[in-house]
């Protein structure tokens, strides 16, 4: 194994590092002798790289690294600082003292500020460095000990030995602080700028554009997960313009992809076949159909349906904040459907929409978090080998689990409490051998806590909006979610049945290669029927509840039947959005 540390790009452009150093030097309270901002005039990292000796590597993966190095540096780097200093020692001494016990000299403490230029050179460092890198969290570099061995401080006052010694001492002290405290922060921020989209978004618009452009055109093997789509269209097939594409920011942690129109149509057909219980499954290459259950995608499904124009099926988990507020605003605006809001969080729904949120990266060991991304673009390197003669989409029904713990998805987590819903998820892989994984997924986004209040149920409501008939026309065909919630009693009754059903259904046909379309269709149908049965049961219970609360069941019926009653009075999510 070899590491290739590339020193030369580091020394190429130091302007940004200079700015950050300037900011870091001026951030902390300065000693009273320094009366002006410290400006980093010149920063040259030199041509000699530091010597690194690997002592220990704790973690190593494509996008993560953790190791301990022994570093020694005796290079020709130098740093020139400019500032103004207070030359009167009495002034600096008194400025830090309380007035009450100060001698309060008349004019002996009057100041004399002198511009000062300090050059730090012959920096000798040696120490143990702990380096932690992850693509998501950036680069963290910590010195385990005080690395500064010696340095040479030359300043305007070299001719005065007292001042020279003083400066040498002061600057060494400051530099030790810098190395131990500020430098890790600077490096971390720099690395975040390089890799993290949140920081990139904070960058100036111009820089953003440049960076996007460069990354677009320089990446030779097009990786749809990391580059903006080249033939991106929105949900209606209109090509996205540049600005919209740039909004699909590159995000290593939240990978997006957009769809070509062709694939959209296919997916629409797939979804349509689902809705109609048809057994027809359009051929989508490199696709794995997977049943997903769990509450976590509700929110996202809700999010996804309204703003279909931009990042039609891309997923931005970091946008949960806006979703939250969005959902809660819906809740406050809503008609206050108590039955919905008072329902426990165990309701489930049949989501084919969310089925498009695919775990393209699921198979990779390094990615724990589920990326619901459809990568329909072929990876050029793997395309040939992974092409399958006949796409074998298959679906499986798995027992859904739900947990309110805000933990990352962990496939091994035992189900805490099953929901009665099944969701089908389409898992399309680039190089996928068709595999039906049964994932008792506990996929909980970090925003899970918000699922536990009225806003949650509201957002769940929202997800239920794109119902069958609408999804054909105005939404990507995948948006079929049906809210289902039951009273606790009914749930407890139906739970056993359904879990056993789903368990039985998921056990049989699920060996990866034995899936056929018919079986998958059967499973789909089965799940759908369960779903419908439960829905009806829920509605009945719902009505009962209403009667129990003294509401007239006729009222709901008069407005269009019990099926509509849930949806009456709520704006379609598109408007809410």
């Amino acid at each position, binding site marked *: 194994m070899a590491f290739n540390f590339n020193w030369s790009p580091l020394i190429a452009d130091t302007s940004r590092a200079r700015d950050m150093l300037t900011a870091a030097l001026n951030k902390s309270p300065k000693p009273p002798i320094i009366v002006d901002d410290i400006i980093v005039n010149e920063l040259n990292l030199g041509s000699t790289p530091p010597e690194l000796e690997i002592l220990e590597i704790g973690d190593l993966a494509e996008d993560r690294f953790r190791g301990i190095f022994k570093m020694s540096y005796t290079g020709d780097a130098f740093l020139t600082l400019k500032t103004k200093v207070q030359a009167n020692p*009495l002034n600096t001494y008194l400025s830090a003292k*309380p007035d009450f016990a100060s001698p309060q000299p*008349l004019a*002996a403490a009057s100041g004399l500020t002198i511009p000062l230029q300090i050059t730090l050179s012959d920096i000798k460092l040696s120490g143990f460095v702990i380096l932690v890198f992850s693509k998501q969290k950036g680069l963290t570099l910590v010195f385990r000990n005080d690395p500064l061995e010696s340095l040479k401080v030359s300043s305007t006052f070299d001719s005065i030995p007292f001042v020279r010694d003083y400066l040498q001492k002061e600057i060494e002290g400051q530099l030790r602080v810098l190395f131990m405290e500020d430098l890790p922060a600077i490096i971390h921020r720099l690395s975040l700028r390089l890799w993290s989209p949140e920081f990139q978004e904070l960058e100036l618009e111009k820089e953003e554009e440049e960076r996007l452009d460069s990354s677009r055109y320089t990446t030779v093997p097009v990786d749809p997960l990391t580059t903006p789509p080249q033939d991106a269209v929105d949900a209606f097939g209109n090509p996205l313009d540049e600005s919209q594409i740039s909004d699909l920011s590159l995000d290593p942690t939240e990978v997006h992809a957009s769809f070509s129109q062709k694939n959209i149509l296919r997916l629409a057909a797939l979804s349509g076949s689902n809705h109609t219980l048809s057994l027809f499954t359009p051929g989508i290459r490199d696709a794995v159909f997977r049943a997903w259950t769990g509450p976590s995608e509700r929110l996202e499904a809700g999010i996804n349906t309204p703003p279909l124009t931009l990042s039609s099926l891309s997923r931005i988990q970091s946008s949960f904040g806006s979703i939250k507020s969005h959902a809660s605003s819906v809740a406050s605006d809503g008609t206050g459907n108590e039955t919905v809001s008072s329902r426990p969080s165990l309701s489930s729904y049949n989501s084919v929409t969310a089925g498009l949120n695919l775990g393209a990266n699921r198979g990779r060991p390094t990615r724990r978090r589920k990326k619901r991304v459809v990568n329909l673009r072929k990876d050029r390197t793997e395309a040939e080998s992974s092409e399958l003669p006949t796409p074998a989409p298959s679906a499986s029904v798995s027992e859904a689990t739900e947990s309110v713990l805000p933990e990352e998805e962990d496939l091994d987590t035992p189900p805490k409490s099953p929901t009665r819903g099944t969701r089908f998820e389409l898992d399309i892989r680039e190089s996928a051998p068709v595999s039906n994984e049964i994932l008792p997924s506990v996929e909980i986004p970090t925003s899970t806590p918000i699922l536990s209040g009225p806003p949650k149920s509201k957002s769940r409501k929202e997800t239920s909006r794109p119902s069958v008939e609408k999804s054909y026309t105005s939404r990507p065909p995948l948006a079929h979610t049906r809210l289902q919630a039951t009273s606790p009693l009914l749930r407890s009754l139906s739970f056993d049945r359904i879990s056993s059903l789903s368990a039985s259904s998921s056990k049989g046909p699920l060996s990866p290669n034995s899936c056929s379309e018919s079986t998958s269709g059967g499973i789909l149908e089965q799940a759908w029927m369960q779903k419908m049965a439960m829905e009806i049961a829920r509605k009945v219970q719902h009505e009962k509840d209403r009667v129990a609360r003294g509401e007239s069941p006729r009222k709901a019926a008069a407005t269009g039947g019990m099926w509509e009653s849930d949806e009456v009075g709520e704006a379609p999510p598109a408007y809410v959005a």
Partner: protein
Amino acid sequence: MLDFMDHVQQAFYEASHWNLDNSYGSLNATARALLDFQTPRGLRLQISSLAAPNFATSYTLGSVGVVDGSVSYLYSSLPLTRSFRSSDLHLNHVIRGYRHLLDLRRPDEKWWWEVWHGGRRIDRRDTLLYGRIYLPQSTLEALYLRRLSPTRQLKISAVSDSSMNHGGTILALLQNDYGKYSTEYMYSTDSALMGIRGLYNFGVDPRVKPSKPSNSPDITEQNNGRFSAGAELYYGLLNKSGGISTGLRFTTLPNHTGFPYTMTLTMNPLMGNLSSTYAVKAGQNLALCSRFDFNFYSYESELQLGCELWRRRNSSADVEWTRKKLRPDWERANVTSDDDVSGVLKAHVDQNCRIGLLWEGRIKELLFSLGTSLDLKKREQIFRAVGIELQYSS
């Protein structure tokens, strides 16, 4: 505006016949009062009381973002007779402005202080003890002041603060005032700073009685003004650094016939700093001051201008007609000029367009000082600080 406790200390100095102005440290007190006044920040309330002539308490509560406060007590062995009630104290006692220097007073004879009773000397030295704790910082200030002799005073001030280097600092100051000249010796525990100050007044020596008791014209002429020169020298034993400055002052005395004025020139030869001030009391209600600083090493210069405007209450119209009816030869119950001051407006500006405004005065029973500091160069944030301070004392 002076803090209540500072006011009490001033009263102690006055009662013990200590001339604060005859010190090198107060050489440019006039210029500092007119140019370097502090504008209050935030809201500050002070309630204080001279419960007994020897004992004073004061509580302050301030809010500059966070709420803080202080509690202070003062004990004086010398009964203080000045009125400290905020409703009727003299405003010019608590508002520092142009300082009228008085004729030098001859120091008391030592035997004046002696009190004998039953064949034993029972007189005690006047002492002042003062302590203040700031909360929640838990900073403690303490002061011990003792008049050792008619010409000597010892002042020990200490600050205890856990955030300081050695947990606090103590400053001992021994002051001698012989009228004609004064000397001060000081030692600070912080970096073992030692200092010496001296001030010499040219002109007549107050200790020497005029040979001719008759008021000859020479003496009155000489007493028109006073020329003083002084110097200070500091040296820190631990940090091996020091400071030096010299200063000159000319000020008019009360029997000067024209408008009063004060000129000072201070110089720091080590740091090349030269500072000259000129303050003039242009009228009964107006004082102006300017200061010019110049550093002949760095060629930096600075100019500051300041003024203070005293607003006096018009005699009330209700009783004006009675005054007119008074016969001219009757002695009028002249309210002194101090009594009818209703407020003082102070302003200073420097060449960087930094302005400080302060309005101090009295409303009903409350003393207030309302101030702001402005920076005209920073367009986006002109108001640097705004504050109001309210004092009530009984």
